[in-house]
């Protein structure tokens, strides 16, 4: 039985500490973000539990290091692989040791990627149940590939989209803010004022529900491989732009161009015509990493706020440098509330996120969603609505 105050590892020795750090690194490599403070807390736990018992150590490690239910199975995997390997041989602190662990880390990362790939497949629209959409011409339209819509259908699609966006655009917070008029009296202020000047409350002060402002940043790929979709996606952007004042839009292929000012001009059709004239690299090649790091460097500080959602629309075909792309995506992720990647190709059942751009970005994304028809965009709207809360 465990004693009242187990003292076997009063001060955890170095090799144990080394192991713990290696273990937390292995978890990190498998995509579970680990906070050093929690590793330290885990070590503190050793004076309360008997770490010679695997299930006690396992429980302590899990409760300290993992903070998302979806990471549970991944944690279990890493736990088994890592400690099986570690326990099956004596603890040494040589360099070889590290190399071996690097190996297992890589294996785990590979395994994890496989899992992520399969979960992406789950997202394919053929399998999505659209239980809430009744049969209607709209439904057919909402499942048609965006690349194949004609002008009339585009118009119709735009209406559908505007409706959908209107639903998410005006979100009223439950919090209240002082107002000049309204139906809701602001007693707190009134009494405070009274306490200050000693008058009876006579001036009525009001409050109203604050409007929540979430900022949306769209980075839209207009390279050659995306041309089929870009027309529609720009429509999507314009619809957003009309409903939400706080949207910034940039398009990129080999260079990044912020087109928010262009969108200020009225008609969508007109705007579209403007685009191809003004943007030199329309339908060119792609260098996602370069463009996003341009964005980070020149626009991020003025455009990004805490409550910002960044949406990247791209198929991920990238001709640029993978390292640069990784740094750029990481930088972007740090500065926004959520990072969403929309990929039109994800609509294809056989699609696997293998092209280098996606592969590099995937670990840093909050959501990786299809964007090839209206139905998938509706999913996006739903998601945005959820994040809005």
């Amino acid at each position, binding site marked *: 039985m465990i004693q009242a105050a187990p003292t076997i590892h009063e001060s955890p020795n170095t090799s144990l500490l080394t192991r713990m750090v290696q273990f937390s690194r292995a978890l990190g490599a498998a995509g579970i*973000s680990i906070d050093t403070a*929690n590793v330290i807390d885990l070590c503190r*736990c050793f004076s309360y*539990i008997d770490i010679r018992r695997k299930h*006690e150590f396992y429980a*302590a490690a899990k409760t*300290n290091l*993992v903070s998302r239910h979806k990471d549970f199975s991944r944690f279990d995997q890493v736990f088994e692989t890592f400690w099986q390997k570690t326990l099956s041989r004596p603890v040494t602190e040589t360099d070889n040791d590290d190399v071996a662990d690097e190996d297992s880390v890589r294996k785990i990362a590979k395994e994890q990627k496989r899992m992520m790939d399969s979960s992406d497949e789950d997202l394919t629209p053929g399998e999505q149940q659209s239980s809430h959409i009744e049969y209607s011409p709209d439904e057919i339209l909402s499942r048609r590939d965006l690349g194949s819509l004609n002008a009339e259908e585009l118009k119709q699609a735009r209406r559908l989209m505007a409706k959908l966006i209107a639903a998410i655009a005006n979100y009223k917070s439950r919090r209240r803010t002082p107002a000049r008029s309204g139906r809701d009296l602001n007693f707190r202020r009134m009494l405070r004022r009274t306490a200050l000047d000693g008058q009876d409350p006579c001036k009525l002060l009001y409050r109203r529900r604050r409007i929540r402002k979430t900022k949306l940043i769209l980075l839209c790929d207009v390279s050659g491989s995306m041309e089929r979709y870009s027309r529609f996606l720009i429509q999507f952007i314009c619809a957003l732009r009309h409903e939400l004042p706080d949207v910034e839009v940039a398009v990129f292929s080999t260079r990044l161009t912020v087109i928010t000012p262009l969108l200020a001009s009225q008609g969508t059709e007109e705007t579209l015509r403007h685009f191809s004239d003004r943007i030199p690299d329309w339908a060119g090649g792609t260098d996602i990493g370069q463009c996003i790091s341009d964005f980070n460097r020149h626009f991020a500080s003025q455009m990004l706020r805490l409550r910002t959602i960044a949406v990247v629309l791209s198929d991920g075909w990238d001709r640029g440098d993978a390292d640069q792309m990784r740094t750029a995506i990481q930088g972007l992720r740090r500065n926004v509330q959520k990072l969403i990647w929309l990929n039109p190709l994800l609509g294809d059942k056989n699609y696997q996120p293998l092209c280098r751009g996606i592969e590099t970005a995937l670990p840093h994304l909050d959501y990786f969603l299809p964007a090839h028809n209206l139905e998938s965009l509706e999913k996006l709207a739903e998601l945005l609505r959820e994040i809005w809360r």
Partner: protein
Amino acid sequence: MFSSINDLEEQFSEQGYIADHLLLTSIYLSTSLGKPIFLEGEPGVGKTEVAKVLAAVLDTELIRLQCYEGLDTYTALYEWNYPRQMLELRMEEARSDDKASIGKDIFREEFLLKRPLLRAIQTPGDKPPVLLIDEIDRSDHEFEAFLLEILSDFQITIPEIGTIRAVHPPIVVLTSNRTREIHDALKRRCLYHWIDYPTLEKELRIVKSRVPGIEQQLSRQICHFMQTIRSQDFFKRPGVAETIDWAHALLALGIEELTEDTVNATLGCILKYKDDIEKLQHEDLSRFIMDTGNPQS
């Protein structure tokens, strides 16, 4: 606080709470390290109950803060009792000639309305209270950020009075139904545990301890039925709370054995959505019940 995990397990099961080893370890470490515990899981799996049982076991006060959207510091922390302050001013006016002293001392503790967080920090006595922050996913980001500060320092600054520090930092239990993802910064300051639906065996033990007087046979049938239902695709799958409610209901009705009719009549105890109820009624109910195998019929 607890001498070992086994000690904790015993005390919890005395209170009728059956927990698995992982949850017990989390609770044990949370009380030992003084770190908040963050419980996530489907509704009705006993998240809130952990805090209640913990308070009962430690024989200490349970302070509950139910979160909702728009929860702000005035309802979570403290507020001045404005009407009383005004009355006090009036009385002072009537009483004294010294105009300068009027209103000097209306910001005293007696005019302070203490809300749950302040109460948790200022609890008198020599035992730390259990602070339950329930359904944190219903509050908004601003409140989460505010909690971070409280949970790391356990101190509150009231401009008019000064800083109040906790003598005995409370044992904090946070729960979430995961209607939205809670920010990592908050989760990282906590020990995390996901409470899953119980296994058949565990559910039997729970029913046995929570519904005394129930027949072995009936409780077996009930738990089997619930396990089968949970394996199906329902909009809202029933939790343990529903199992216990149902068992109570069946016991009150004097039913000794599940039949299709009794299930149909008491379906409202298990499923809370019209669509779910209709769906189950269309299914062959006997399939769910026969699974338990009843030698008596």
